[in-house]
């Protein structure tokens, strides 16, 4: 068999290459740097992320394709959908870095590899957004996951951290296996892994048992990454045990990457099966919403509470995915909007948790928030605002996001799902507002340890949340364009 090299244009994948190059460069530099000097890694990572972001934005509206093998279907697409997701991942990275710095210093974790692993994980996430081939999706999944396993365990020899890493790795491997099995089954049924070709094959031959089995397995793999019930059980343990900045990063980046995979599979590869998967997604969403929100009420540890909160938010995004079955443009764009708004709000909340954590594991209880408002009025105000946003009270980005998601679901006539979403939002008010209540109504000893970088990042996130709450149209138009570029095949086909 003759091998023809695929057509490759490296400029198109430059954002990923920049991140990977920065990571590799850091590894090499570390070898030659004396142990005392560690500050450079932060700057290297930040500059790498900024460069990648710039190049990424420059590709907007390009609809590029590359890595085109013989069959003519590109493995990597750089459409607006991918660019929007890439921007989300890069912003996540850029915001996690200032949140991490002082925490890493006081827990003795300040090692260049932390930042390098962060970069590698982000490169995996970006690949996930750009993937147009299930093989590449799987590759991306692994590239993003493996650095996360390591980062979760970076606080060794503390047992909680090691336990977190071990559980995440074991269960992650388990779900990856299921996911790759799903790919295999789909390949078996359609003789291809290229997403557009799967679409064509289904269009030509219809569904069969093999494909839907593969679909179920793919949903399990993605469901694990986004922490949807019942594939969520690792989440509280892993979030609690991992270093808090890593938790913050996982709760946003990994979740969004998981949804990227899910959207690619459901919306682009198998939209003809939407009649099959819409109910499954809706049921997953319902379970996720109820379990996530209800159990969060009884958590005394803020990290565990936010873990359940992140499960619950996966439920809301799943509403948007379910709506996308009937109404692709509104569903997908509202999901993108939700993830973007969630990025700022959730990282902001984690920023406060990081600032409150004196030493690893100390100051993670909800009671530690008591009386913070008196000593740190501005940061407490920001925290209260993030809590309002997570609850979905206007004028916050969280409200705008829920508004669009529920709107899309109503258009898709998923009324009962909206009803559950609204009821669980009300329930979520109970545990979110409790944080506000504790901060403002009690006296306490808690102290925040904040650097200027962290304060600045929290400020930026609060403002972004406010802007998204007041003027959501601008971003929503972007998400609509992103959706349009990804679903243009659907519209055309």
């Amino acid at each position, binding site marked *: 068999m003759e091998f023809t090299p695929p057509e490759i244009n490296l400029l198109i994948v430059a954002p990923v290459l920049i991140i990977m190059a920065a990571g590799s460069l850091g590894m090499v530099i570390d070898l030659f740097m004396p142990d005392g000097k560690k500050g450079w890694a932060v700057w290297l990572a930040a500059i790498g992320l900024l460069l990648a972001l710039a190049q990424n934005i420059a590709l907007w509206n390009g609809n590029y394709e590359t890595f085109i093998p013989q069959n003519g279907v590109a493995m990597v697409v750089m459409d607006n959908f991918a660019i929007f997701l890439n921007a989300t991942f890069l912003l996540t990275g850029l915001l996690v870095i200032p949140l991490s710095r002082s925490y890493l210093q006081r827990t003795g974790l300040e090692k260049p590899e932390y930042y390098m692993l962060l970069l590698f994980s982000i490169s995996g996430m970006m690949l996930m957004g750009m993937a147009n081939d299930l093989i590449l999706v799987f590759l991306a999944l692994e590239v993003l996951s493996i650095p996360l396993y390591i980062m979760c365990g970076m606080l060794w020899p503390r047992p909680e951290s090691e336990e977190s890493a*071990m*559980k995440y790795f*074991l*269960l992650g491997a*388990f*779900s990856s296996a*299921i996911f790759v099995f799903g790919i295999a089954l789909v390949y078996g049924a359609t003789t291809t892994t290229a997403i557009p070709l799967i679409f064509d094959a289904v269009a030509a031959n219809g569904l*069969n*048992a093999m494909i*839907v*089995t593969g*679909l*179920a*397995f793919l*949903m*399990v793999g993605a*469901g*694990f990454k986004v922490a949807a019930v*019942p*594939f969520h*059980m*690792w989440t*509280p*343990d892993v979030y609690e045990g991992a270093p808090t900045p890593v938790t913050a990063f996982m709760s946003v980046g990994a979740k969004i990457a998981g949804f990227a995979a899910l959207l690619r599979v459901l919306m682009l590869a198998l939209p003809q099966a939407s009649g*099959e998967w819409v*109910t*499954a997604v809706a049921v997953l969403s319902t379970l996720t919403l109820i*379990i996530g929100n*209800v*159990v969060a*009420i*009884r958590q005394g540890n803020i990290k565990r509470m936010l873990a359940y909160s992140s499960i619950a938010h996966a439920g809301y995004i799943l509403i948007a995915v379910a709506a996308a079955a009937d109404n692709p443009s509104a569903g997908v764009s509202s999901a993108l909007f939700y993830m973007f708004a969630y990025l700022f709000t959730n990282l902001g909340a984690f920023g406060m948790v990081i600032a409150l954590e004196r030493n690893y594991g100390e100051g993670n209880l909800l009671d530690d928030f008591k009386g913070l408002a008196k000593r740190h009025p501005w940061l407490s105000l920001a925290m209260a605002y993030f809590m309002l946003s997570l609850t979905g009270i206007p004028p916050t980005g969280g409200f705008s996001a829920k508004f669009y998601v529920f709107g899309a679901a109503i258009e898709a006539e998923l009324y009962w799902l909206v009803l559950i979403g609204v009821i669980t939002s009300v*329930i979520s008010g109970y545990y979110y507002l409790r944080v506000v209540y504790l901060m403002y109504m009690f006296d306490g000893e808690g102290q925040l340890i904040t650097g200027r970088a962290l304060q600045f990042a929290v400020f930026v996130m609060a403002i972004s949340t406010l802007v998204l709450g007041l003027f959501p149209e601008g971003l929503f138009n972007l998400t609509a364009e992103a959706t349009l570029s990804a679903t243009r095949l659907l519209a055309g086909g």
Partner: protein
Amino acid sequence: MNELFNLAPLILVFPIIGVLFNGLVGRRFVDHDRKTGERWSGWFATIMALSAFVVVVLLNLALHANHFHAETVMLWDWIVIPGQGLSIPWAMQIDTLSVAMMLVVTGVGSIIHIYSIGYMHGDPDYSRYFAYLNLFLFFMLILVAGNNYLVLFVGWEGVGLCSYLLIGFWHERLAKDGTMKNANAARKAMIANRVGDAAMILGIILTFWVFGSVEFNHVFEEAIHIFESHEEMVTLVSTNIEMAFSTALFAITVLFLIAATGKSAQLVLHVWLPDAMAGPTPASSLIHAATMVTSGIYLIVRSNVLYELSRALSVHSGTISSSDIVALVGASTALYAGLIAFTQYDIKKVLAYSTVSQLGFMIAAAGMGAYVAAMFHLITHAFFKALLFMGAGSVIHGMEHGHHEVAHGHHGHDDDGFDPQDMRYMGGLRKLMPVTFWTYLVGALALAGIFPFAGFWSKDEILAHANANQGEYGLFLVLFILLALAAVCTAFYMGRQLRMVFWGQPRHEAARHAHESSPIMTFPLVLLAVFGTVAGLFNLPKVLTLEFGWSLTLEHWLEHSIQTFELMEEGILAHVPHTPTSLIVEVAALSLGLALVSMGLAFYVYRDKPKTAADPDPTQKIPGLWSVFGRLPIDSFYMKLLVPWFNRFSAWLGFKFEWSFWHDFFHERVIRDTFVWFADLSANVLDAQGVDGIVNGLGSVTRWLADGIRVSQTGYARTYALSVFLGTVVLLIYFLWPYVMR
């Protein structure tokens, strides 16, 4: 369209710049340096007024170039309700009628601005005064320039506001009995005008209902259309209500008449105008004599089509038309106010009642269909009445200065109740204030209708009109008699005033020491005196059938915007009273003779009376005059009957109905107690036992559920893997079920 028309918005821009300057920074200028500050403040406002005047002159030229055809300058859409057919533009109608008004407003306005610079000298609120004056110009120009009733109404209300502000300009001044004289006068004007304005709003609404538009041209076209098609009934816009066209027309025109009686001080809403003299004299001169009070006449002349159609319909049916009512109201007011003027001692109040009387002439003229004559009298009156007021202001100024000097010379001589406006303290000012005297004389002769001054021509045209048409319209004979008597009154009270103020011996030390006002005040007097003399040229009748190039200028000018003329020519309106175009010698001789005799009589009666300030007035011997008109019957009616009853009713509403019944009984007993009972029931019974139980129960269930699920979170990775596995199995079953069942 001539490009000059595009300048039209500037007539509003200049005054508003003046308002902003004097309103925002003028005071700082004046407070910082009195002398230069006053100069800046006063001249800035004056230059803005003059600039507006220049623009109006340019618009006039544009009209000439346009062969006198009206142009509409659209500024923007103002009120638009799509789907309801409601679209009211903010547009300016530049036609001969509006430009004639604008010329008067800005021309006389500018002269009065100049006069005010001198008159207001030293006033602590110098710049506020000029801000109001410019604001008045702004609104007055909106009023006359608007192309629809609603824009007109904006100006209408705006000038009312300025009038209120200027009457109350010295609102802190108290009367001798301690009442807030000026503030009360301002409120009185506001309240009397409210009545008219309410009618105006109703009239506009009804106009829209009947004709579907408030734009002058649309309304008139539609009215003519309905008239021509002989439709009896009209359907109100957006309703199913049908209304007789004649009734609708009658209602609209009468409502507009009521509006005009408010603004133009006609019976029975005239009571505010004499009190309005509490304001600064130049403001009285501009607003309460020359311009604002004529807006009622403008409204009627502008609506001439509606009034003439009403007349035509009533000729048909033999009922009284709204035009007849207009004319009757005007003529009665003319005579009534003329009689009251006999009994006034305040130099400005005599002029105020004279204004009411002359406005009555104009209204009567408009009601008789003599629209050009009405406008003619409006214009000449603007000149000579502004002149008289400013002359009176000059006299008052002189008296005050004289009093000042006396008070300085003789200490403790200040307690005789001296009033600088009271004619009983004046006398012999002819020699002391020569410029004021001569100009005042011109104004008085013009007002009395003495040949060849302006008032003679305009008044004569009205009388001639009434005379010429009395064969066809029986009512016009009554009107003619009323107006002729009013003209006699005018000549008499002006003779009385001239005699008391300028001739004889001074009846007070202050009058002995009075002296002439400064040139900045006398110059405008001279200017207006010239106009007061020659303004008759604007509409000179053809004398003895000879036509001079000058004659009937105003008529030729205005016939382009008074559609009645057009309708006459087209034969749509058959019965329109004609104004004689040539001089009717009999009528002219009669009115001149009556005026001369009456004035001479006044000079004779007041030749040596009153000798001192305390002497009674000679006319008090005439039975009924002082006992009826001297007591201001309508004011008395309002104050003795209407106001007390109104107050009693208000008190009943306030204390009995609102407080005792509505608050104490209804709210406290019925609503509050019921509410308390219900709240008690719902809080202690329904809520505490019912709802709380459910909510707490729900909370417990949620917590129990949470605890239950939490137990499954064992911490063992195998449990978690099992969960994933089970989830996968369930999903598989769901997805494969249809294939298995197949």
